């Protein structure tokens, strides 16, 4: 059985974005899991919304603009999206703002995957997700169905009585709620009819129900018949326990174990979620309070997503990016850009994050930071999509004073072990192997060459952050 500090560290990696060096003592003083979980939920209460100070009038003025002005406006919109992306990453890395709410919002952003190109709509959608991140799943689904960016992304704007567009209805069932195997092609067609007329105002992003485009006729959906609209469809979908099961399976993979889904645990979560009428907070609280969440099997079992990797590194090393390029570049090069999921199914996750190219960047990342080197990667343009242009140089400085302070008194011979305990999530049985290898590699020679404690801490930190094991959380 793992000790309480190790459990709490596991909790912080999964519920938030990892623990801060300055809080190492907190690990030792926190008495039990219950109080730690309580704190996690307390901290998650504030909603750190994006402020929307973009000029909406410029959009409505667009039709009177000449080509050059339009181009300029599009350019500034792209820039706004870049800034929002960076703002969110910095919130996640922020000691006070990177809470469970942001982690949940990050999860839901991957779940309701949507490309966000318009800054006004991006602010609107992410704020909506943040608001409902720990609330009720039904409110969240309904808000997403009425969300401007989603309506445009999945073509519900083109979904009208005479020519239904099924794109949104299909993804709602397949990816957002109940999952494959629980509905028919006909259910999709009928659901699409129910969502006809669910439009958005392209200029303001407000939801706009147009009676004239809505199909008022009878629909038969999942065995029920009636004059359904989108609300009814969502009600019917959520009345099925399969929907709770689909969501908790995804939650389990994201928060507990992405390799081995435990049927019994997922079943338990499903029941909690379904019986609470889709209360997300209750389900998550239940999850973090179960013994099985802290089992050895689940420790360090998850490959960090690029955003988790980046944010974790920012927290551990107090990274200060001189400009936004470094933050955007890292996401792009590792294969996960916020607001830009690859498609409506979101990021696949797990081993799919790792291929020969992305692994190399991850392993070299700490080295790049400490040597202020350029990451030598050409980012290829994708001709057909709007893209965030980024540079290749990450201009960033690390401040590892808090880390040095915490390990100032650690005995030199224990330094590698103590630091790796803090920096790496690893089950007990694999620890010995890791510690043995430290002694046999160039890493130890490198650390031994350092003349004082701080330099040794720095040397070991770079080495440990470069290990494949550091990719795990």
């Amino acid at each position, binding site marked *: 059985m793992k000790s309480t500090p190790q459990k709490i560290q596991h909790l912080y990696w999964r519920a938030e974005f990892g623990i801060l060096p300055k809080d190492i003592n907190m690990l030792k003083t926190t008495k039990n899991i219950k109080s730690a979980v309580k704190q996690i939920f307390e901290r998650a209460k504030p909603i750190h919304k994006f402020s929307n100070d973009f000029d909406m009038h410029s959009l409505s003025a667009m039709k009177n603009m000449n080509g050059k002005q339009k181009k300029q406006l599009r350019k500034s919109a792209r820039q706004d999206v870049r800034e929002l992306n960076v703002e969110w990453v910095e919130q996640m890395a922020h000691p006070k703002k990177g809470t469970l709410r942001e982690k949940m919002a990050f999860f839901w952003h991957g779940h309701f995957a949507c490309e966000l190109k318009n800054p006004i709509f991006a602010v609107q959608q992410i704020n909506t997700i943040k608001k409902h991140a720990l609330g009720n799943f039904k409110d969240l689904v309904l808000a997403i169905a009425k969300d401007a960016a989603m309506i445009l992304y999945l073509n519900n704007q083109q979904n009208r009585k005479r020519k239904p567009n099924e*794109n949104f209805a299909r993804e709602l069932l397949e990816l957002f709620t109940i999952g494959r195997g629980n509905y028919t092609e006909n259910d999709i067609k009928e659901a699409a009819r129910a969502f006809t007329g669910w439009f958005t105002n392209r200029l303001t992003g407000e939801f706009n129900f147009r009676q004239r485009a809505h199909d008022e006729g009878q629909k038969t959906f999942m065995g029920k018949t009636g004059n359904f609209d989108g609300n009814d469809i969502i009600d019917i979908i959520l009345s099925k326990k399969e929907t709770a099961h689909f969501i908790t399976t995804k939650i389990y993979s994201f928060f507990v174990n992405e390799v081995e889904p435990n049927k019994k645990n997922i079943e338990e979560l499903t029941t909690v979620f379904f019986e609470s009428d889709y209360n997300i907070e209750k389900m998550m609280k239940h999850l973090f309070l179960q013994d099985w969440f802290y089992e050895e099997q689940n420790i360090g079992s998850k490959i960090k997503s690029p955003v988790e990797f980046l944010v974790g590194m920012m927290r551990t090393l107090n990274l200060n990016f001189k400009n936004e390029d470094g933050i955007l570049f890292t996401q792009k090069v590792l294969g996960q850009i916020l607001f830009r999921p690859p498609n409506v199914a979101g990021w696949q996750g797990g081993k799919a994050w790792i291929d020969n190219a992305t692994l190399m960047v991850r392993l070299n990342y700490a080295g790049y930071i400490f040597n202020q080197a350029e990451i030598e990667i050409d980012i290829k343009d994708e001709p*057909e999509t709007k893209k965030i242009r980024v540079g290749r140089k990450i201009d960033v400085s690390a401040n590892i004073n808090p880390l040095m302070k915490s390990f100032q008194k650690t005995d030199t011979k224990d330094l590698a072990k103590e630091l790796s305990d803090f920096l790496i999530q690893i089950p007990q049985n694999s620890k010995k192997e890791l510690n043995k290898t430290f002694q046999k590699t160039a890493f130890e020679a490198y650390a031994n060459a350092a003349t004082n404690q701080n330099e040794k801490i720095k040397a070991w930190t770079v080495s440990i952050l470069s290990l494949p094991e550091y990719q795990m959380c």
Partner: protein
Amino acid sequence: MKTTRRKFIGQMGLATAGTLFVPLFLKGFDSMAASSIKTSNKKLIIIQLSGGNDGLNTVIPFRNDIYYKERPQIAIPQNEVIKLSDEQGLNPALLPLKKIYEEGELTIINNVGYPNPDRSHFRSMDIWQTGSSSNEYLSTGWLGRYLDNIHLENQNKPTHFALEMDDTLSLALKGIKKSGFAAQDLNRLKRTTSTPVVKAILDSEKNNVAYSLKSHHEHSHDEQVSYLYQTLSNTAASSEYLFEKNKAGKTVANYPKNRFGKDIQQVAKLINSGCDSQIYYVSLNGFDTHANQKNAQERLFKNYAEAIEALRKDLRKTDNWNDTLVMTFSKFGRRVGENASRGTDHGTANVVFLAGGDLKKKQFVGQAPNLTDLDNGDLKFKIDFRQIYSDILKNWLKTNPKSILNADFENLGLV
């Protein structure tokens, strides 16, 4: 960068790097790579038109009134179609393909699909990439299983034997024992696998062996970390080789100046250099045209056709074109009728292109799509896509298709 690297090497005490261990299984790998492996000299290039390309506006049934009736806004006018037969012709943006067709090096296969078609992007892509039936879920790709198969026949191939020009690896190239290799830029790959940090990790022999030899992983952690170490060692072994081959390869043709053009050019370089990669996988994105399809599709087609034309020119110069087969597919076509937003929604059967110097006859395989006999607004498939895979596996890659596709498919005699 150079100074920094040298400085870092000094800091890491890597002056002794030459005396450090090379991981055992890497040694084995090196010797395998060095020995001359007997392989077929046939190359296969797969081009994936991602998003679900509209086949009816690709190969146009220009005599069919229903086509024009169903597509009042997006149909290609008859006088613009590049006519290849009495009934069918190409989208004007595909003009470079005309010559290839007329010289007998392009085969157009009509109505390709599979029973109970799935219109979901992800599921349909999985079906095409794994070669499964629509009710069957496979976690390996058809090319990944080909790699597994030749691996079983004791012809150990390097990971780059199947190379995807991308930052991540598609399911099509994932096998159980062997998977393909993803590399968007080979120069970059070489640089990132030669940093001191990576070398130091590779040198930690015990670590590598400890993880890689564990046949039963106690924890999910071990399994994942072992995967990371193996990926690392394979990457290091392949990157050096590909780098050298890419440097040696020559091309002279004009490729479109964008990602797809560069990808195809790199394939041409590698093939011309005698690289031992056999399979190349390239994607062209952007075909999910729910709205305003016409311009978007034409832009993509121009890009595609110009790259194929350049590839053919370069491979002909080195006599490699006769040993190269290019298969272009998209996971589904679109509905026959256009939608209200001048686009098309997800459909079913679609057109597949084969191109190569060894095809020797210009031909359409299968009748033009029948627009009067539809399945709920969608085309009915006539040729199972796995028949094409089967032909390629059997007659081009010279392997037993049944062991890869798990069933017998009627031979089409395409290659």
